[in-house]
């Protein structure tokens, strides 16, 4: 074997890698925000909603968690097309990512909600807090704080899964890498570079979650432990 690595194409292509990485981050960030909202609402609905809603959410969660993201994204992409809606690949990508991560978030947050002891709710009601106030201050907030590490891991996986949106030609990092390797014929080098960038991106996502956690969970900042 006499393969010599040649990374010289990077001189021309690094702006494209950067653009791809930037789009990956953007797709992930938007999906993270909406996925968090969707997942938390679903968790609440599944814990305390009417029977039919619980059932709908449970089905949604099970369907998403037991089918591959690749198939989900095809269905959503072609679904938009069949419905006569012209949407960009990026939009379809975000829609698929949000629907996907929403289900995982729902399960994680639900576990957090279930871990809050009844006595906490009782204490809050006895202090005269309304149902909504109790729900927010005593159930949802500490629940999310408790499952925050699990959420962090899941959202790193989300960022990595966004690579699959290259399959509907969203121009994120993996799609860019695919194009670069077909132009340069330096496939191995191209994917090594892409891999390294993804590793950096996962550190960035982790760091962002850590800093955000420090910001919104003062208890964490002060004691460094999880509840």
């Amino acid at each position, binding site marked *: 074997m006499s393969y010599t690595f040649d990374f010289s194409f990077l001189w021309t292509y690094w702006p494209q890698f950067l653009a791809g990485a930037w789009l990956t981050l953007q797709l992930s960030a938007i999906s993270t925000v909406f996925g968090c909202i969707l997942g938390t609402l679903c968790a609440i609905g599944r814990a305390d909603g009417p029977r039919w809603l619980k059932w709908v959410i449970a089905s949604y969660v099970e369907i998403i968690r037991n089918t591959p993201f690749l198939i989900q994204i095809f269905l959503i992409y072609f679904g938009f097309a069949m419905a006569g809606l012209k949407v960009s690949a990026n939009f379809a990508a975000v829609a698929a990512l949000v629907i996907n991560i929403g289900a995982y978030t729902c399960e994680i947050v639900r576990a957090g909600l279930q871990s809050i002891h009844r*006595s*906490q709710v009782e*204490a809050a009601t006895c*202090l*005269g807090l309304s149902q909504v*106030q109790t729900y927010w201050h005593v159930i949802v907030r500490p629940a999310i704080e408790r499952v925050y590490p699990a959420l962090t891991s899941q959202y790193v996986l989300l960022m990595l899964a966004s690579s699959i949106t290259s399959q509907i030609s969203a121009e994120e990092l993996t799609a860019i890498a695919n194009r670069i390797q077909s132009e340069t014929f330096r496939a191995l080098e191209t994917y090594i570079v892409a891999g390294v960038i993804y590793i950096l991106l996962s550190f960035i996502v982790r760091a962002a979650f850590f800093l955000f956690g420090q910001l919104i*969970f003062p*208890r964490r900042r002060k004691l460094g432990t999880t*509840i």
Partner: protein
Amino acid sequence: MSAVVSLRDVHKSFGAVEVLKGVTFDVGPGEVTAVIGASGSGKSTALRCVNALETINSGEITVCGHKIHDPALDRRALRRDVGIVFQSYNLFPHLTVEQNIMLAPRSVKKLSKSDARALAHEVLEKVGLADKAESYPEQLSGGQAQRVAIARSLAMKPKLMLFDEVTSALDPQLTGEVLRVMEDLARGGMSMVLVTHEMAFARRVANKVVFMHKGKVQEEGPGAMLENPQSQELRAFLSNGL
């Protein structure tokens, strides 16, 4: 002057098990009533009924003018008048001591942040923990946590305080500091109902002792009743219950 709390022939069942079998007693304004009795006799259940945490099957309970047995009861109004402290503190672990205390005044009474903070420090002063405002519950000893729980209830300026075995999870030396806070409160004229195993404390502080046995009030009277029990059951309880 009408009673702050009055129970009239209260019945309460969990499924097929009748836990309260016609409980009747009153608590006058500024009075301290100690409820004693063997484990399982229904003390906690009675206390929880007073705060509408359990729905009663029959009978009448009136608390600070609120009719607990009335289906149209305004629970939030009731809870503005009644504070309750549990054996297990039930502080909110994700909030500091100060935030634990400020939460209800801010959410329920819509106090400004600075007013709520001033109030928190006032009640913390009362329980001797002004220096712990910034701590989190897990950083407190059991006795301190329980005093914070008391302070948290006091911040709502209740007309009546309920205590359910607030010292039974504590070491003897920590029990003292909590009992002292409760004694101060009693001397300050707070109406109180406390379920307790501390007989000496009941004798010293309570105006009235209610002895419950198998879901009924077996005997009731002034603290001195403990020195001179009338019923066989109370005598038995006092001799081996301690």
